[in-house]
């Protein structure tokens, strides 16, 4: 088991390294002078040269790459050309909000997608199945930014059922200020027993999370259905029935467990996709996550920042995959015992 994990870890590290290298090369292939951006539009040539030296841009490319890699482990992810601050600290401030959103979205997606897939697979071809399939495909066809706008208009601005934007009600900052424990507003409110704040963070989380959950929910529902229908003809299913188990046990417990492995893989896959999706909706919901930082960095050709965000997303993606690998090994003894 540990050998399996060690192998996956090594592979993952290699992939992350490759990703960083690729980003570095792309960023440097692009025209533009980061030193000039750093120094500002009114800088003299001498100041630009000094900036270049400060940022280490006068060194040959391989040296820059090597220094960057070394810096990753020491926490030095470079300085953002735009904000002039440490990229790592920029990311650390913004990341929790995005992560909170993605995780909430995935939880919703699982809670909706798995039962839907099960119901769909129980009676394939019937109306319920057709409806759920159509719904799933609708979910994966949804333009996220549009759905965000529409839901915001309908639920927040017209019906006034949910808040419009932000992570929580700003007015609560005065009456029930939020102490930072984990950096995740919902968890912080929960751990400190700050109930008004908890209610506020949760209600603010609903709309954006539902929007981001649309795609994964559709995907998960289809995967569950496909996996179950794939295995429903196998002998062990008939055996379980022959022993007198009701259909809900056969499907809900026995067939479903077989489906978890590929479903987990799908979740890891969709994690990265959803993370970047949150970037799209952040501007619409005023969500203080990595999205605006990422988009701004790209707009200003802020190479260290771009590298930092890419690195972060790649690492998050890799960790998600590792977690899934562990889950798969736990569920499926065939992987463990090989």
């Amino acid at each position, binding site marked *: 088991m540990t050998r399996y994990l060690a192998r996956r870890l090594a592979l993952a590290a290699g992939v992350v390294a490759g990703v960083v290298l690729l980003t570095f090369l792309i960023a440097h292939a692009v025209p533009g002078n980061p030193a000039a951006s750093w120094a500002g539009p009114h800088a003299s040539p001498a100041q630009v040269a000094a900036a270049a030296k400060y940022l280490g841009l006068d060194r040959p490319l391989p040296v820059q790459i090597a220094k960057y890699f070394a810096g990753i482990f020491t926490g030095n992810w470079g300085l953002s050309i735009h904000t002039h601050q440490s990229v790592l600290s920029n990311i650390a401030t913004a990341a929790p909000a995005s992560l909170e959103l993605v995780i909430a979205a995935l939880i919703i997606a699982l809670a909706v997608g798995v039962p839907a897939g099960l119901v769909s697979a129980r009676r394939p071809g019937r109306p319920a199945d057709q409806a759920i399939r159509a719904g799933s495909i609708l979910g994966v066809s949804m333009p996220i930014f549009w759905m965000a706008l529409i839901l915001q208009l309908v639920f927040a601005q017209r019906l006034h059922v949910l808040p419009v934007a932000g992570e929580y009600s700003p007015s609560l900052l005065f009456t029930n200020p939020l102490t930072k424990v984990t950096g995740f507003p919902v968890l912080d409110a929960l751990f400190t027993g700050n109930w008004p704040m908890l209610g506020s963070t949760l209600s603010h989380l609903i709309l954006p999370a539902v929007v981001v959950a649309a795609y994964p929910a559709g995907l998960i529902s289809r995967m569950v259905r496909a996996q179950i229908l794939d295995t429903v003809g196998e002998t062990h299913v008939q055996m379980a*029935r022959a022993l007198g*188990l*009701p259909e809900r046990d056969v499907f809900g417990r026995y067939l479903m467990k077989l489906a978890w*492995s590929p479903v987990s893989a799908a979740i890891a896959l969709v994690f990265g996709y959803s993370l970047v999706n949150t970037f799209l909706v952040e501007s619409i919901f005023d969500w203080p996550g990595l999205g605006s930082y990422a988009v701004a960095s790209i707009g200003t050709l802020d190479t260290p920042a771009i590298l930092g965000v890419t690195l972060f997303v790649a690492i998050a993606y890799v960790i998600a995959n590792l977690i899934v690998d562990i889950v798969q090994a736990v*569920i499926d003894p065939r992987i463990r015992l090989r």
Partner: protein
Amino acid sequence: MRFGARAVVDLDHLGVDDGEIVGLAGESGSGKSMTTLAVLGLANTVGATVAGSIKLDGTELVGLPEKVLIGLRGSRIAAIFQSPSMAFNPVFRVGDVALRALRRHGLTGSEATDRVDQAMRGVLLSPDLLRRYPSQLSGGQLQRVAIALAVALRAEVLLADEPTSALDVTVQAEVLELLRELRSRDGMSVLFISHDLAVIAELCDRVAVMQSGSIVEQGPAGQIMSAPEHPYTADLLASVPVIERRA
């Protein structure tokens, strides 16, 4: 029994008495496995329908509500299947399904464990094996576990669908011996379905021969084997290779 408009199995009359081992012989595709599903009331899971009558001790099975059928399955009628390695869900421990089935039939957790353990010992296997995964057991062991599960559920009738076809000859002999023991010890009736006439001849009291979904001949094993009346039976017998000892 039919798939849509196509009748697949059309049995005139097939009966198994208490403590009797009846063989159902025929080639692949003659509809033998369908019979198992039909008796269990599971024909709909492969898209077939059953018309006519199937009786268990005089109780009509066809048309019973699903709830009643679930109660019957396992506890009165049990089944074992052709490929033992495929008959167990690979991500669950081998004993899991049976324990859950027993609890569904009303036993408590410890009662269920005791029953299954006892059954395992009855088939000469250690109860520890129940905690293993299917990939860790051999084909013969798995088939014996499957039989043990049927015993644990106190089934009166066992439908054995080609149980030895996927096994080595030596393991096969063990399984057959086990079935004989179950018959003499517990009075279990067995419907032994197989394409292997040699095995049927060895094990069964009575034999029914099936061709393309219908029974063409039925009778005591000895009689059928030595003096077949139907030409198809004669053909089947003739195709069994015989190793002759040259005197």
